[in-house]
C-alpha cells in the first residue's frame, strides 16, 4: 500500500519542516521525494510571549529533504482548538545523525 500525497493535491495543507517551521498553503504539486509546491503559502510563527504571526510567502517550493510532516487542515478542528491564537514554544528542529 503506497503512501502518496495525491489525496491532498489542491487542498490546504500544513507542512512542518525539519527546522521546526509551520508552513500553510495549497498543495499545488509534489513528487516522490516530497519536494512540494505550495500556493498562497504562509508561515505561522508561534511564540510563547505573543500571539502567532502569519507571514505571507506566496508561491513556495519546499525541497523534500526539509519536510518532516505534511498534514491536511480541518477548519472546524482548528477553530475548536484555537490554534490560530495559541501561544507556544517553537518546535525543535529535527536532529539528523545523532552522535
Amino acid at each position, binding site marked *: 500500500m503506497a503512501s502518496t500525497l495525491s489525496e491532498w493535491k489542491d487542498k490546504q495543507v500544513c507542512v512542518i519542516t525539519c527546522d*521546526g517551521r509551520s508552513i500553510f498553503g495549497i498543495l499545488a504539486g509534489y513528487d516522490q521525494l*516530497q519536494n512540494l509546491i505550495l500556493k498562497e503559502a504562509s508561515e505561522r510563527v508561534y511564540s510563547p510571549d505573543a500571539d*502567532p504571526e502569519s507571514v505571507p510567502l506566496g508561491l513556495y517550493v519546499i525541497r523534500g529533504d526539509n519536510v518532516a*510532516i*505534511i498534514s*491536511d487542515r480541518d477548519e472546524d478542528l482548528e477553530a475548536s482548538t484555537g*490554534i490560530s491564537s495559541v501561544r*507556544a514554544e517553537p518546535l*525543535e528542529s529535527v536532529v*539528523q545523525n545523532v552522535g
Partner: protein
Amino acid sequence: SGVSPVSPSVQPSKCTIAISFVGFGIVMLFYSFFKTLVGKEVAVELKNNVVLTGKLHSVDQYLNIKLSDVQVVDKSRYPQLLALKNCFIRGSVVRYIQIPPGEVDTELLQDAARKENAPAAVSSKA
C-alpha cells in the same frame, strides 16, 4: 529462496508473512512488517521529539508513514499540532515507531531478520 516451516499453532496470516519475509531482500523486510500493521494504533516518535499517535493508514518502501486520526502526545508542549488530523510523516524524520506488543510476533521477526543476514547458513527446524 528457502521457506521456513512454521508450527501449526501460528495464525495463518503470520504464516503468509513469514514466507514473504524470507522471499524479499532485507530492504523490504520492515516494509512488509509494517504493512501487516496497517489499521493498528501506533505511536511515532520523530527526531524533533514530537510523538504522534494514530492509526497506521499506509506505509511505503521508504517507511514514510501516513497516520489517520492523529493525536499529539504532550498537548501542552505542542499546542500548534492540536489540529492535525491525517498526516504524512517522512520516513527520514522518524526516530521510533511504538507498536502494541500483541501485534508483533517478535520471534518470527527476529528469525526473518537473521535469515536475511545469513543467506548462506542452513536453517534447520524440527
